[in-house]
Every structure is written in C-alpha cells, then in structure tokens.
C-alpha cells in the first residue's frame, strides 16, 4: 500500500544515487516539483529516462545529476532548444552525458514491455532511419509467423518511476485524466514509484474505465498542489506557455542558469516556496503572466 509522504521524504526514501529514474508526463502532468526535490537532495549519477526531457531534465542535466539520458524528443516544446541538454551533448558541460536515443513509438513499446514483464517490445518502426545505426539497442527481428522484419527494443525497467496526477485518496489510490501519456506503463514497469498529486481527497470519483493506479502498485503518494508547473494539470490549471518561453532565456547561458537554479530551487525549501518566489519576481516584470 502506498505511503502518504511529504515529497522530500519520498525522494529521500525511494530515489538513490546511480538509479535509473523515469519521470514521465507527456506535456501534461510533468512532475516538476519532484525534479526540484531531486536537485535539492543532490542525487548523482542518475540514468534519466523520459520521452520528452522537457525543462525538468534540462535542469537535472545542467546541474550535473545525470550520467546518461534515454529519450526520444529533446526540445522545448513550441519554443526551440533545451540549452542545458544541448550543452551537455555538444560540449560535455557540466559533465559528459551518454545518450540512448529512440523514437516515441519505440519508447512507448519499451515501457509497455517493461510493464508486461517482457524482455522487449516490438513495432513497425525505425525503418529507413539512422537511429538503429547509432543505438545498438534497437534491433530488427524476423516474425516467427510471417517472416516480416520488425523492430525490437529492450524493455525499460526503471528503478523508480516518478509521475504527477490530479488526485489520490487517503489509501493512495491515484486518479488521473486528460493526456495520460505513458504514466500507467512507467509505474507498472518500475520497481518503485512516486506519484505527486494536486490534492489528496476523501474519495476519488472514478468510473469503470478511469485511469486509476491502485495504491498497492505505488510506493509513495505526495500531495504537491501545483506540482506540475509550468506544465499543467487538466481541471486545475493551464500550461504556463510564457514560462516555457522564459526558460529559453534562463537556460541559455551556463552561469545564468546555475544562478537561477541556486536562487530558485536550491535556496528554497520546497515547491510552494519556489512558486512564491517566482511570483514575487514576476510582480516586478511587466510581461510575465503566472497561471495557477
């Protein structure tokens, strides 16, 4: 049964140096608060797995927490580059970053295979692409029934999954809705899992086909209101597109990035204080909007 913990305790308990960590959420429900807490606790040598690294991994990579990245699309959605990710790949700063690169479809079947306790996932994919030339973990196999050539990728089995959801009840049963990404797959594929939620309620309103992660498949549930910012939580707050644009400027230079992280993340006690500090700073900036 899931433990109801505060986020700092959950990260302390379930995320260890050297772990393979998959923090998922496809544009929606990105576990940003948990990413900050991993930064604050200075985890090292992580293998980070995520389809779309987004700001959350730009921060962890830029602060040197990652040894390796497994991913399928590494940009700032609708804005451009993830500058810290690029700096790590192009110039090895602040440390060299090993990459294992896939396509979205490849990662999706790799997570599903992990959840299903299969050694690999299979797809009609990667045909004609150079990705298999540079990623030896993408292979082609012959279908034993039809003889067709199909792509195969090894299952992803993280040490720990971290996702965000809208609600959990007091027993740790988690409910999420909207764009649900690969959250269910990644939790089921991982040895341990942490779910941050917008709120813990007495009773989650489920229907028979709702996406529910029963408390007994989750290690810890943490209430972190606004914990997906600047991503969004459908039914709670919208995506803060202006912050995604601003990130381009914050992360562009090494020094500016490091100072921003020190001031806004390392020097704040938790995500709520981070948000308050950001809103206070925004108050002096005429062009910024703060949602949620």
């Amino acid at each position: 049964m899931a433990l109801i913990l505060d986020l700092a305790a959950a990260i302390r308990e379930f995320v260890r140096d050297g772990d393979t960590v998959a923090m998922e959420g496809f544009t929606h429900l990105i576990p940003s608060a948990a990413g900050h807490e991993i930064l604050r606790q200075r985890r090292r040598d992580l293998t980070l797995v995520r389809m779309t690294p987004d700001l959350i991994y730009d921060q962890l990579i830029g602060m040197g927490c990652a040894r390796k990245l497994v991913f399928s699309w590494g940009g700032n959605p609708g804005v451009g580059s993830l500058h810290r990710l690029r700096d790590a790949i192009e110039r090895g700063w602040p440390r060299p970053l090993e990459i294992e690169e896939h396509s979205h479809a490849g990662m999706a079947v790799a997570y599903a295979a992990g959840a299903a306790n299969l050694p690999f996932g299979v797809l009609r994919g990667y045909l004609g692409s150079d990705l298999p030339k540079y990623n030896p973990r993408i292979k082609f196999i012959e279908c034993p029934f039809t003889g067709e050539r199909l792509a195969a990728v090894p299952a992803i089995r993280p040490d720990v999954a971290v996702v965000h959801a809208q609600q959990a009840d007091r027993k740790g049963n988690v409910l999420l809705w909207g764009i649900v990404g690969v959250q269910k797959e990644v939790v089921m594929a991982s040895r341990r899992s942490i779910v941050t939620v917008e709120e813990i309620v007495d009773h989650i309103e489920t229907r028979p086909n709702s996406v529910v992660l029963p408390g007994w498949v989750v290690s810890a549930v943490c209430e972190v209101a606004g914990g997906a910012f600047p991503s969004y939580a459908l039914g709670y707050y919208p995506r803060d597109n202006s912050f995604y644009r601003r990130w381009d400027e914050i992360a562009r230079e090494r020094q500016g990035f490091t100072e921003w992280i020190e001031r806004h993340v390392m020097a704040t006690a938790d995500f709520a204080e981070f948000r308050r500090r950001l809103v206070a700073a925004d108050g002096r900036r005429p062009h910024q909007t703060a949602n949620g």
Partner: protein
Amino acid sequence: MAEPQYSADEMMTVAAARMLRDGAVCFVGIGLPSAAANLARLTHAPEAVLIYESGTIGAKPSVLPLSIGDGELAETADSVVSIAEIFAYWLQGCRVDVGFLGAAQIDRFANLNTTVVGDYRSPQVRLPGAGGAAEIACNAREVLIMLRQSKRAFVAKLDFVTSAGYLDGGDSREKLGMPGRGPRAVITDLGILTPDPPTKELTLTSLHPGVTTEQAIAATGWPLKVAANLARTAPPSAAELAVLRDLNQRTARAHGEGA
C-alpha cells in the same frame, strides 16, 4: 478588385492546407503542419480528423497549440488515449491517411533530418530528435512535408536520416516493406515539390505567385529538377487569409503574445 496582400509563410500554410482533403485522418506535427491542418479543418475540410501524438484523436482546437499536448487539444478531442495506444493501434494500425511533418533538413528524396547537424557523436548542432516522426513516415498512408526552402534546409546529403522518405530513390522505400507510400508533396514558402514517379526525386511542380524558378533553384542545395509543365499556385483567397489570420490572432492572444 485588388489582390489581397500576404506573406510567404501565409502562402505556404494555405498551399499546404489545400492538400488535406475533407474527411482525411491526419497525424499532425507541431508548428507549421499544425497551422495548415487546422486551417484546412476551418475552411474546406471540416470533417478532417486531427490526431496529435499526445494521444488526442479528433482534436478541434480553437487556438493553435504551443506544445503537442496543450490542454486545448485534450478538451476538444473526440477521445484521448495513451501514448502506447496512439502509436500502436492508431498509427501502426494503419488508421492514418496523412502524416503531416516538418523538419530541419530534407534531401532530394524527401528523407528528413530532425536529429543532428554534423557528426552524431560530436554534433555541431544537436536538434530535438525523432519524436513521433520516424514511425509517422513509415506508417501513414501518405506524408505531407512543410518547411521553408533554403540551402541550409534543402541539402545534398543529410548528416542523419531521422525519418525515411524515399531513401535512395526508385524502389528503395518499397523494398524495405513500409506500410505507407511515402511523401506526396513538400510545401515550402517558394512552391510545391513532388516526387517524380519512377525516380522519386523531388521536382518543383508549382511555384507560388511572384516567385521565380531561379529563386527556387538558388534555395536548393542540389540541382533542382523543374517540371516541364510548372504550375503557378493560386494565391490565398480573401476567405483563406481571413480564417488563417483570425486563427493566428486568437493563438497569439491565448499564448500571451502582444495582443
């Protein structure tokens, strides 16, 4: 009546939108393709089904999404499914008529690079990577591609093939056994390129108004083939422009730009 004034990007978006037939099921990339697909839906193709890789099927956004998974897409969709399902059942299951893609670079056989400029292991410029494009390029029945034409983008040799077009041309794509037929057209800010039937080499088949053949050739990094019966793209109609500008203005307001 005076001709309406318009930009090269508006011409490109309108020309691309016209290629999407009503009722088509379209797997949409973010950015230029999303603008064109939604323009089509708001003009001649109200029954087009727009699928975004975030799992949103039948999305009808009133403003263009900044990301591939904006709340607007989920809230206006007929159905929202998981990422594993959208790629497996809907794309790989051959439910998609048209894949609509952008790219950083393209070659003469419409192969696309969105991964890297320079050497993969020590890149000059690291680009975002494949996302959904590699499998859209394999599995969609046909593919439409949009990108601005320049020598930096239209290159003789790609540093990295992220998503397959016609590979080395001729029947090299067919030999790999991909379910989809491959790119049908490349729509740029200068004109429209389509694959020559036997060789599959991209050929300039239509020029947008006011653009010369020389301009198109100068913006291409290989000796560009030009069709003997080169067409002239019809300029955007007043109605097409009005809908596109309205969409862009709503989008800018919603995303907190300028308004």
